[in-house]
Each structure stands twice: as C-alpha cells, then as structure tokens.
C-alpha cells in the first residue's frame, strides 16, 4: 500500500480549496486586485515540501549527528537542541517564503504592493504546507482507517495557519521594501516562534492542550492586529478624498 490513509487527501483538498477561496477572496476584496496573485499561489505550493525535505530535515539530521543526539522533541534533549528545533521552522520558512521576490516578475509586483503581494505568497506557502502535512499523515500508521471527515482538527488548524503564513510574509515583504530586512526578518521569526511555541511546549509535556489553544488564539489575534495596523496606515496615506459625488451638503 502506498499510503496508510488516503482519505486525508480528500480533507486536504477541501481545506486547500476552502482556504484559497476564503482567504484569497478576502485578500482580493480588500487588497489590490491583481490576477498575478493567482500565479503566486501556484508558484508557492512546492515551497513547504522543499524547505522541509531539502533544508529542515537535513539540517536537523546534521545537528543530531554532529552532537551525537537522539533527536525528537522531549526533555531528555539538551537545551540548545530544543532551541534549535523551536527556531528551525521560523528561520528557514520565513526566509524561503520570500525567495520568489528574486524573480523579476514577482519582484516588480511586490515592489508595487509589498504587504498584499507578500500575503499572497504566504498564503500559497500555507496551502502547500497543508498538502505536505497531509502527505505526512497519509504515511503515518497512527491514522489507518480514519474517514476523511474525521480530520476536522486538520481542517481548522491548516485553515488558520494559511492566514498566519500570509500575514507573516506580508509583514516581512513590507519591511523589506521599507529597507528594513533584518527588522522584518527578526520580527517574522519571533512571531512565527510565538505561534509555534504552544505546540512545542505541548510536545515537551510542559503545558496542556487548552493552554496551547489559548496561546495560538492570542498569537493569531496579535498577528492580525499588527497586519491591520500597517494596512490602515497605508490606506490613510493612499485615500483620495476627491473621488466622491456630492449630492447635498448643508452650508454651516
């Protein structure tokens, strides 16, 4: 059997279509309306698999080998290795998500609207990650026999994570075109770390699931607030007051 559970791919397809439709629809309706953003989504789909298979996994294996460790997220590991694991995803993923801006066509678009262009790149990455994680689940013997509708947690989590990736990349590209790459990259890493820390502490057995959910919710709210603050400031500077038809104005 190729997959231990192929039903997860039905759930993944629903999740990807749902996330693309809802977040993409929202971005399209309140951001700049460019058809090229659809290509951004497609372009970013393989990036999660690439970063996981070609960077994160080999890096992790290298550290395990060099320091003669057992690997895994548990309290038997040295502190430096746990910190390495906690920062591995934020450092590598936040960087790979902005790699497409080295392509001239992408760069031109991102230059014009860094916040939304970055958000579309991040959303594409999130969709690809949903597929990559589904692939991981399909290979796991833990989920044998489960029907597609039993993966409700996957749907909810991946749906929100797509938004998180979109916001983080939007913030980073905005900072890059403010000529503040290191500030943006540092902030994106810290925020990504903050989003992941609950699940990480849960894996270590330090906190419970309820606290993880609270941390996750708080981090999402903080991300949305930061994104909205920047977006609002951009809007204020772009609003053209003259584009209105006055039918009546009472003289004072």
């Amino acid at each position, binding site marked *: 059997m190729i997959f231990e559970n192929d039903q997860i791919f039905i759930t993944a397809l629903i999740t990807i279509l749902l996330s693309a439709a809802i977040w993409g*629809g929202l971005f399209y309706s309140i951001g700049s309306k460019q058809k090229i953003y659809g290509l951004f989504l497609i372009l970013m789909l393989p990036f999660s698999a690439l970063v996981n298979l070609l960077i994160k996994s080999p890096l992790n294996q290298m550290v395990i080998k060099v320091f003669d460790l057992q690997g895994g997220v548990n309290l038997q590991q040295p502190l430096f290795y746990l910190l390495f694991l906690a920062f591995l995803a934020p450092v590598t993923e936040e960087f790979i998500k902005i790699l497409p801006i080295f392509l001239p066509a992408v760069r031109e678009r991102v230059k014009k609207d860094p916040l939304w262009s970055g958000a579309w790149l991040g959303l594409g990455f999130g969709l690809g990650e949903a597929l990559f994680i589904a692939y991981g689940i399909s290979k796991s013997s833990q989920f044998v026999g489960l029907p597609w509708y039993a993966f409700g947690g996957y749907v909810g989590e991946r749906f929100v994570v797509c938004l998180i990736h979109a916001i983080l990349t939007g913030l980073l590209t905005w900072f890059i075109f403010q000529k503040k790459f290191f500030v943006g990259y540092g902030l994106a890493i810290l925020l990504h770390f903050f989003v992941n820390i609950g699940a990480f502490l849960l894996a270590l057995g330090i906190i419970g699931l309820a606290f993880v959910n609270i941390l996750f919710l708080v981090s999402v709210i903080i991300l949305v607030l930061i994104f909205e603050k920047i*977006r609002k400031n951009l809007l204020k500077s772009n609003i053209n007051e003259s584009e209105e038809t006055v*039918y009546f*104005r009472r003289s004072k």
Partner: protein
Amino acid sequence: MNNYKARSSAGWLWLLGLGIFILVIIVFPMLFVFRETPVWVSFMNVGLGLLIGVPFIYIALQVREISYIFHADHLEISMGRLIQYKVKFSEINELVKKDLTITLWSSMRLPGLALFKVPYADEGVVSMCATSASKNILLIKTEHGKYGITPAAETDFVNMLTSKIQ
C-alpha cells in the same frame, strides 16, 4: 414612489452559503459518529451548529427585505425586523456617493453586502444597510452618525431625498 428597494447583489448567497457550511461541518459529521458519541456531546454540537448556522440563513433571507422608505419627516432604512434606522431629514448634513475603504474588522460585511455598524478606514463607523460592501455607496451623514445605503433607482431616490432635505 415612497418605497425604494436596494439594488440586487449576490451578497445574500454568501450568508446562505456560510450558514449551510456551518451546519454541514458541525452537524453532518455527527451523523456518522452519533452512536459512539455521548448524547450530551451530540446535542451540544448539533445545538451549537444550529445556533450559529441558522441566524446566518435567517439574515440571508432577510436581505431581500431591504428597503428605504420616505416618511413625512424622516427616511426609514430597514431590513425586516433586524434593521430599523430612522434618519430625520432635518438632521442630514451631507449626501454623497463614494467607494468606502474597508477594514478587516466588521460586524457583517461580505462581498455584495454590508449590514449593521461597519468600521471603514476613511469614514469611521457607518450604519450599513446596503447590497454592496464598499462600491458606490450612498452615504448619508447626519449629526448623530453615518448611514450607507444602495437604492436600486438611485437617481429617483437622490432627487426625492434632496428635495425633502432642502
């Protein structure tokens, strides 16, 4: 004519779809695991699905009831029993048509629909009863607040309103 309807839009379909979607994702899985799940959990989930999903469907069906009615001294902006705004002609300071700039925060704002109090980046909080989220909104500014509407027969409506205000 004293009663004007809102221009048509597919906004109500979003609400209907959202309501049905909520019912499907919460109630539908329960049908498969009903026997293995404790009764109180099943009822709680189904109840929660109905509590969240049904209001969306109800509002979607009410959108067709949006109307702007002229009375002797005020304009009534209504959507069935859910929205009842009364705007006195004497309190209207400004009537403009414009595209509003939307924010991520809103009580009820979907493509082709804006209801209740919606915060906009350029105009602040606007009491909306419109079949458009931001495009071509007729904005009525009064001493007590702002109202956003989208009458179908817009020219007639504007002529009628300006004649009442002046």
